[in-house]
């Protein structure tokens, strides 16, 4: 257990943590080319530096991080194809702005996990906090537990799959992409969404403004079955489909003065 004040972190004038930190080089690379390192005694910055050193300098394709201990901002900004396994939980902002990696979190993630994810796959074994997959643009995010509020807020692409329940204001201002939520959903689902599709397996407490039930097509069946088979989730349960009603779209409506002329 870390004693009080054990980790001393320095900040520069801009507020950046540990400006002169260097990668600790404590990873062990085995015969299969899998690098493993223990994050227990490291700070957030040195964990990320070690991760980047392995992926970018050593050219390692698979990294296992032991004891992430729910630290914030781990595994962010990884822009290369690789496999990362976190043997534990992540804090806030985990795996943000990633483009390419396949990440497996064997625990929980805090708020704003996979924010602005561009591509790749993230699998979370336990629960996730609020704002999961916020502004996500591509890739797949699978949460096997439950998620907090505002999952996929401002989602612009990709697929979010949640095996448990979801909180309020899910898919708020969603613009594109898919969400599959197998559990129950809180109030305000799909509020002010522009486009995209939400599939819900459980009950919906209430729909947000301009979110309406959609018509199920063969393409939906194909999509859901494909995602379920990729992640080994068995056969999909009966799902409801929700889409944008497009009643909030005002691009084509007339100005009040013009409307008078038409009438």
């Amino acid at each position, binding site marked *: 257990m*870390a004693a009080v004040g054990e980790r001393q972190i320095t900040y520069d004038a801009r507020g950046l943590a540990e400006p002169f930190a260097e990668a600790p080089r404590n990873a062990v690379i085995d015969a299969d080319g899998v690098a493993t390192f223990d994050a227990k005694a490291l700070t957030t910055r040195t964990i990320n530096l070690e991760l980047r050193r392995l992926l970018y300098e050593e050219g390692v394709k698979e990294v296992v991080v032991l004891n992430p201990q729910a630290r*914030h901002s781990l595994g962010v900004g990884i822009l290369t194809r690789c496999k990362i396994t976190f043997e534990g939980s992540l804090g806030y902002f985990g795996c943000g702005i990633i483009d390419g990696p396949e990440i497996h979190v064997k625990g*929980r993630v805090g*708020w704003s996990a996979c924010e602005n994810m561009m591509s790749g796959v993230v699998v979370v074994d336990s629960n996730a906090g609020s704002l999961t997959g916020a502004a996500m643009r591509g890739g797949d995010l699978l949460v096997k537990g439950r998620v907090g*509020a*505002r999952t996929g807020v401002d989602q612009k692409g990709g697929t979010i799959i949640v095996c448990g329940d979801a*909180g309020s204001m899910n898919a708020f201002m969603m613009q594109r992409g898919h969400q599959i939520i197998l559990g129950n959903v809180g109030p305000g689902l799909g509020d002010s969404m522009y486009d995209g599709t939400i599939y819900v397996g459980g009950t919906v407490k209430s729909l947000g403004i301009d979110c309406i039930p959609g018509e199920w097509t063969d393409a939906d069946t194909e999509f859901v079955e494909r995602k379920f088979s990729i992640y080994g989730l068995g056969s999909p349960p009966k799902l409801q489909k929700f889409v944008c009603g497009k009643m909030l779209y005002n691009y084509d409506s007339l100005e009040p003065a013009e409307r008078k002329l038409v009438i």
Partner: protein
Amino acid sequence: MCGIAGIIYRDGSQHPIGDEMTRMLQSMKHRGPDSTGYALYGTPANGDLVMRFKLADANTPRDYEYAGRLRRHRSEVENRLVALGARLHEVEEETPYAFRVSFDFDGELKLLADLVENIPDAEVLSLGSSLEIVKDLGDAESVHDQYGLADFTGTHGIGHVRMATESEVDIAGAHPYWAYPYSDVAVVHNGQLTNYFYWKRRLERAGRRFMSECDSEIIAVYLAEEMSKGATLEEAMHSSLDELDGVFTYIAVTKDELGVAKDELAAKPLVLYESPELVAIASEEIAIRQLFDREIETYDPYEREVLVWQR
């Protein structure tokens, strides 16, 4: 931003909660470096009452009169307690301006608190048979060292690290808040209340006093008002969801209960760990992880949830 944390041992066993809460709060220092506060429930010797009070704020200017004024006010507090019929056991000077007094008293506690607070600059931080509120400027470790919390054992406690947004950086604006005049109730809050003045005027008319300009004080006093009308902590917390506007996640504690409430937007974070032995809650999981050296299962409660645990 603020960070809040709470821990309760369900079997009522004694634990070093002063140290545990310090570890939790120190790990959330980035959420609020301005001030740190604790509300801890210990077991004072032979059923004493404990009052914590301050006679000046941490950043009160040290003028020529400062030390003499504190000395006079301190003896005035003692005199008034004795005159009211309290039998003082011990008066500890934790800092030059903050004191802890243990005593026996059978009369009305509100009267006692009012008499103490009638002394210029005096504020009763907490009053009760097990509640002790400690708060000061700085991070958790400095407050922990300053007030000697290393040997504080108890059954449950809450804590707060503050990033001041609505009121000044001083002890009066620091959390936790004691639910004056309801002994042994305290609250920590993360968020902003938007109908602060409405409730402040209403509660002042009902005879409650406010010692700060901080919006969070409303919650403590509101709960006290509801509980004095006969509501349980859980009922009072449920009605607060409709009565208080704004964004909030707050933790309220009584002698045997610890409860948490989230607003209807679930705008402020909270992570919950529950086991048969204990319940630990915090704004960030990293704080709960200070208590465990292994992987744990945690989750975020949803909007409008009120959860209460007994010890």
